[in-house]
């Protein structure tokens, strides 16, 4: 069976992923909306920055975040002046890092969903007296629901699979920063192959279930008016 520390690591992972996804909905939605709608020259550079975590080695991302959040980094100075101490090696440090790490997995599906809606429903809403703000909530959100579903699932799953960034930012503190992927690494380091097997199997089953849900939903016949 899973050990006490395994369960602790799984619980920590779930909390981290859920919180990250929750925060990303609020950060990712306006970014995706802007990227989907803007004709500004900045669309290209901004899109590239958002996509960076897709290709960057997690250790590189983690390294820069560590510097930024450390006692001499800009983020670190800010958090210290607010009396919050520094973020590295804390749970909240992991949350901040995960938000960066999983950002493209939130923004890109949302951006695609927003772009697929097109101009017409927004124009229709405007001719029916809806302000742009009203239109976003009464038309865009309902029409982009499948996009939100996909974005949420992907962000959650991607955060669960995080490893390199966690090692750089969070280290390996039981109950605080030791997530499931790190726990597996520890088991292997300690030659506890049976434990590593069990936890890995859990992760494998989880990831498969998540992706299966998503693909099943995506294959449902789309209805359009």
């Amino acid at each position, binding site marked *: 069976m899973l050990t006490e520390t395994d369960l602790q690591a799984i619980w920590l992972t779930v909390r981290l992923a859920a919180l990250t996804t929750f925060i990303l909905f609020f950060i990712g939605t306006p970014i995706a909306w802007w990227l989907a709608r803007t004709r500004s020259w900045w669309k290209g550079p901004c899109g590239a920055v958002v996509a960076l975590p897709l290709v960057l080695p997690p250790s590189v991302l983690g390294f820069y975040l560590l510097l930024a959040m450390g006692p001499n980094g800009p983020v670190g100075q800010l958090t210290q002046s607010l009396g919050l101490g520094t973020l590295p090696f804390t749970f909240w440090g992991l949350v901040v890092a995960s938000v960066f790490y999983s950002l493209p997995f939130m923004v890109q599906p949302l951006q695609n969903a927003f772009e697929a809606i097109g101009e017409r429903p927004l124009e229709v*809403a*405007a001719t*029916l007296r809806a302000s742009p703000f009203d239109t976003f909530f009464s038309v865009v959100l309902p029409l982009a629901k499948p996009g939100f579903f996909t974005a949420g699932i992907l962000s959650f799953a991607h955060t669960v699979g995080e490893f390199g960034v966690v090692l750089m930012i969070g280290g390996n503190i039981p109950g605080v920063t030791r997530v499931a992927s790190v726990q597996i690494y520890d088991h292997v380091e300690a030659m506890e192959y049976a434990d590593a097997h069990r936890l890995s199997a859990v992760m494998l089953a989880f990831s498969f279930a998540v992706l299966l849900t998503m693909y099943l939903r995506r294959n449902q016949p789309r209805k359009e*008016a």
Partner: protein
Amino acid sequence: MESVEARFKLDWPGFALDVDLKLPGRGVTALFGHSGSGKTTLLRCIAGLERPAHGRFVFKGSIWQDANTWLPTHQRPIGYVFQEASLFPHLSVLDNLRYGQKRSGGASRVSLDTAIELLGIGHLLERKPDSLSGGERQRVGIARALAVGPEILLMDEPLAALDLKRKQEILPYLERLHDELDIPVIYVSHSPDEVARLADHIVAMDGGRVVAHGPLGETLARLDLPIRLGEDAGVVLDATIGEIDAQWHLARVDFPGGSLWTRDHELPIGRKVRVRVLARDVSLTLDDPGRSSIQNVHPAVVEAVADDDHPANRLVRVTLGESRLLSRLTRRAVEQLGIVPGLPVRVQVKSVALME
């Protein structure tokens, strides 16, 4: 008269709109022209869906756009019907109708119920848009635009995406709107038939400019109308049913200066109708035609002669009292009969389309 003042200048790569118009504050005004003539763009400028750099739009005294003013679309008291119905797929028919009505402050002049009744969609309210036919969807789209209680209705080729059968299904509803609404309607179309049936006023557009505009009857009778109607050249007359001949299933429609017999559509005597007479159905004779299958024959006077699309043809305008007809003749016939302005002739009208 209360009226609408529209002046727009817009420069896009490959297309420019340059329009300065006064439109009547009532009735149906058709923006007519080929695709690419700028009629839809003009309509979108009126709705505030396009924002031309230079423009001025005044609707019955209130300024929607000028150098210092810009009223965004959602603050303009318009109803807009798009070419495809563009219903919200996530809402039922009723919720689609309510979407705009809820947001218009409940001050609807044409209430939701009237809109539902006018378009005959009472039985569709619980349905989702994707279960409706194209014609039903467009009727809901029109009702949705009316349910906001607009002060002006803008329609962008509402029939263009439909097949002939669906068009026939919707046209009677549009004619009802024409009769029962007292708000101005601006109707974009490239179909001479729709324009003849629905419009009171016509604005002909070409290459982003207005090439002719005026009351429908007058404008269609112009020989120099720069919009080539080809086979559809002809006039529209406002007429009244004057007599029914039950034995032969014929009805006589009277117009100022004459009358024509046409098939009886079971309309009562005294009913106001529109008749459309195409130039190709009108011929001229110098002598009394005697025994002829064409029984609509009237004395008339040639008013003007002009070139037609094809070099073999000429268009001749004749007057019957106050009314005018166009006749398409071959250039040779015009030459050989010596048809010149002022010549008394007889017009023979082969067929007449009656529109309620």
